């Protein structure tokens, strides 16, 4: 595409999204211990918004009223690469509930799986149930707790999980203690032999190198699932090396193709975004409990 055309298209897109935002109606505002949270309706979408700033606050979860199953955000789609790696997780742990649409979708896809979600903010849990059809059941549980605390207790109790989904970063404030080498080791200690972690984290700023190096120091080689020019990526790492081959993931993909389709997720699109290239500065320092200025590093563009 020519540059002027690209420019026009992006201006158009920005205008459209601004108009859409202007069209947004706040249907519920909840003051929580941590922030103001609102539920916003925007056309057919109902979204959970953390109001950390006035302009374009980060959207946490959206649900399409016309197609409630559809995964609205790309990053949630990319998390599903976890199922291409480990097709049959029995115990799943989700850190960071949001609207709870991911645990609900997983419980449909995996009728025998037990899914525990850990969420620090009771108001988020309340809104997930009220507006996003999040429902607890004997195999869908919610724990109101800090993620790190939950993992540490689980390790003491010698619990283990087949899939841990780390989705606790809302884009504006990063809980630094969920990024350190020590934390990632604790996570690894509660993963089963075939267990994997998929972490929704950052792909820009100086933080990208620090974070990638930290993950690599704990898990070894991992798959980097990311799209161009977006702020986040998914780290897909197994508890035990070696990393299984991409061809095996492709094989698993055929199994999930029709199921994923119901959620608006194309397996080929997923496979296209899985990378193994180590495209970060590998000499980077690590994030540790002693040194974890993640929020400051995020503003250091480089």
């Amino acid at each position, binding site marked *: 595409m020519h540059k002027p055309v690209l420019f026009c298209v992006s201006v158009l897109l920005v205008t459209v999204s601004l108009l859409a935002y202007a069209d947004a109606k706040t249907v519920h505002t909840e003051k929580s211990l941590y922030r103001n949270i609102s539920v916003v309706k925007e056309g057919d979408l109902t979204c959970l918004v953390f109001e950390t700033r006035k302009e374009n606050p980060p959207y946490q979860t959206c649900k399409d009223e016309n197609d409630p199953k559809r995964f609205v955000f790309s990053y949630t789609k990319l998390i599903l690469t976890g199922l291409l790696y480990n097709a049959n997780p029995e115990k799943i742990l989700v850190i960071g509930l949001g609207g709870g649409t991911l645990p609900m979708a997983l419980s449909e896809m995996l009728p025998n799986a037990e899914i525990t979600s850990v969420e620090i903010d009771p108001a988020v849990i309340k809104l997930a149930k009220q507006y996003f059809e999040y429902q607890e059941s004997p195999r869908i549980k919610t724990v109101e707790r800090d993620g790190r605390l939950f993992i540490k207790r689980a390790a003491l109790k010698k619990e283990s999980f087949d899939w841990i989904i780390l989705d606790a970063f809302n884009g504006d404030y990063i809980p630094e*203690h969920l990024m350190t080498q020590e934390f990632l080791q604790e996570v690894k200690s509660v993963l089963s032999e075939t267990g994997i972690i998929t972490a929704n984290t950052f792909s820009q700023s100086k933080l990208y190198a620090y974070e990638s190096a930290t993950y690599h120091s704990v898990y070894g080689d991992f798959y980097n699932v990311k799209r161009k020019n977006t702020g986040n990526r998914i780290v897909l790492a197994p508890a035990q090396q070696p990393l299984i081959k991409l061809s095996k993931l492709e094989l698993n993909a055929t199994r999930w193709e029709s199921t994923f389709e119901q959620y608006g997720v194309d397996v080929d699109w997923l496979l296209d975004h899985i990378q193994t290239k180590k495209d970060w500065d590998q000499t980077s320092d690590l994030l540790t409990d002693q040194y974890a*200025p993640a929020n400051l590093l995020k503003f250091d563009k480089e």
Partner: protein
Amino acid sequence: MAPFFGGSIYVWGSIITIFMLALSIGYLLGGRWSIRSPNNLKYGSLFLGSALLLLPMIFFGEAIMEWIFEHFSDPRYGSLLGASGLFFLPTVVMGMIAPYSVRLLVINAESSGQTAGFLYFVSTIGSALGTIMTSFYLVLWFEINTILWFIFATYLCCGLSAIARHYLAGNRLILEGNHA
């Protein structure tokens, strides 16, 4: 704290509570201790005491927190105990410094308000600078323990210089103190 008790609201509550409690007790003790024969030797020893009490935090902080984590499952009381274990003692002694400084610096009743006001100014602006420097810059440049060692060294220097002053020119101050 965060590695053991997370970033929940009660962790912040615990830390602030323990600091306030320790400081208030320190103010009370420091004031009482200043009644009888105040001098720079005792004053300096408060700084040295604060410095030494930082050492357990640096060396055993992790072990202390681990023990509390394993024995208290309620995250609220766990974090309250954790904050006490790490910060209570050094903060009590640091709190004693302020009233003791008032005692050493006050020359007469008329200027006592001004002296106390100046000390409040110094101590509060010091807290403000320390907080902003640490949260904006120091955490980006250093590890937490390095920052603690720096505080340790600062207290050590202050304590030693007060003690040196006591032996070099201290007697003059005691006399002034007795006249007041």
